[in-house]
């Protein structure tokens, strides 16, 4: 096709797309006009029903807790696949050297390790009180651990994340989530129903099973990220 013909086809397609786009835009509700009745209802009842101050956590770990169970298993499966594929292919001794050479990166890395881990744990712990939760805090905690690597402290990094402990933490986190659901069944309620004591709203001991599930997913996500990050780092470091 000649350049002219291509430009012509593009011109016609772009014009059609643009007109459809404008048509769609004119039919949209006004900016900020929220039409989801479900969200409005949850915002008004979640605080009194579940004794939490972060409604998102109540949705993720309670009203839609079963969805999150699926996500936990999805993450677990992905992590196990990465570990199976990469660990199998990379047999032999781990190379215990520091590959980060830049002094600036090392200094910043070392400085950032503590604050990042603390922020991560804080975000997990206060998941049902303030924005955040197991997922966000879990990734941040894992990032803090990997910063040890950037600080050129390979031994410290490995000491903080031994393979056996990380594998165990990953399994425990996902297993604990499912176990809470089964515990609800044993307590004579529906799967993942909030059967625990709801506690005092606004304190760390509130939310019932939301608090437990939040901690379980924090553990699972942190372990999953450390595991994936480690396998990828080893891939880069191991010459083939």
């Amino acid at each position, binding site marked *: 096709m000649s350049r002219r013909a291509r430009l012509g086809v593009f011109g016609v397609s772009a014009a059609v797309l643009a007109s459809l786009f404008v048509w769609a835009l004119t039919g949209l509700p006004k900016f*900020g006009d929220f039409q989801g009745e479900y969200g409005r209802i949850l915002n008004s009842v979640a605080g009194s029903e579940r004794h939490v101050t972060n409604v998102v956590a109540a949705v993720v770990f309670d009203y839609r807790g079963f969805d999150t169970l699926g996500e936990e298993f999805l993450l677990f499966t992905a992590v196990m696949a990465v570990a199976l594929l990469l660990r199998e292919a990379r047999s032999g001794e781990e190379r215990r050297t520091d590959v980060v050479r830049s002094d600036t990166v090392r200094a910043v890395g070392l400085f950032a390790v503590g604050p990042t881990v603390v922020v991560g744990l804080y975000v997990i712990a206060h998941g049902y009180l303030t*924005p955040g939760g197991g*997922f*966000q805090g879990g*990734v941040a905690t894992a*990032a803090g651990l990997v910063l040890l690597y950037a600080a050129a402290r390979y031994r410290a990094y490995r000491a903080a994340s031994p393979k056996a402990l990380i594998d165990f933490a990953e399994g425990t986190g996902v297993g604990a989530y499912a176990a809470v659901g089964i515990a609800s069944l044993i307590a004579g309620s529906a799967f993942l129903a909030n059967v625990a004591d709801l506690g005092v709203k606004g304190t760390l001991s509130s939310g019932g099973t939301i608090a437990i599930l939040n901690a379980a997913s924090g553990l699972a996500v942190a372990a999953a*990220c450390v595991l994936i990050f480690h396998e*990828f780092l080893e891939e880069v470091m191991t010459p083939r």
Partner: protein
Amino acid sequence: MIPLQVVAIALVGLGGLAVVAARDPLRQALVLGLYGLTLVSLFVVLQAPDVALSELVVSTVAFPFILFTALAKMRDRR
């Protein structure tokens, strides 16, 4: 739409353009992280702090990490 929201949305648009304009993969991965930060500020401005935190950890920690290690591995191969 308040002016702050307009600014935040405009920044996201500029960030997206910058990602496309960066041709070198390593540079693009870095710009992508910055683009994620513009999205984070948009979510904060729109009062969605939970989403902002998720976007923050995904776009500045998890995604660039995977990209950087993949790029480093590819450089080894060459």
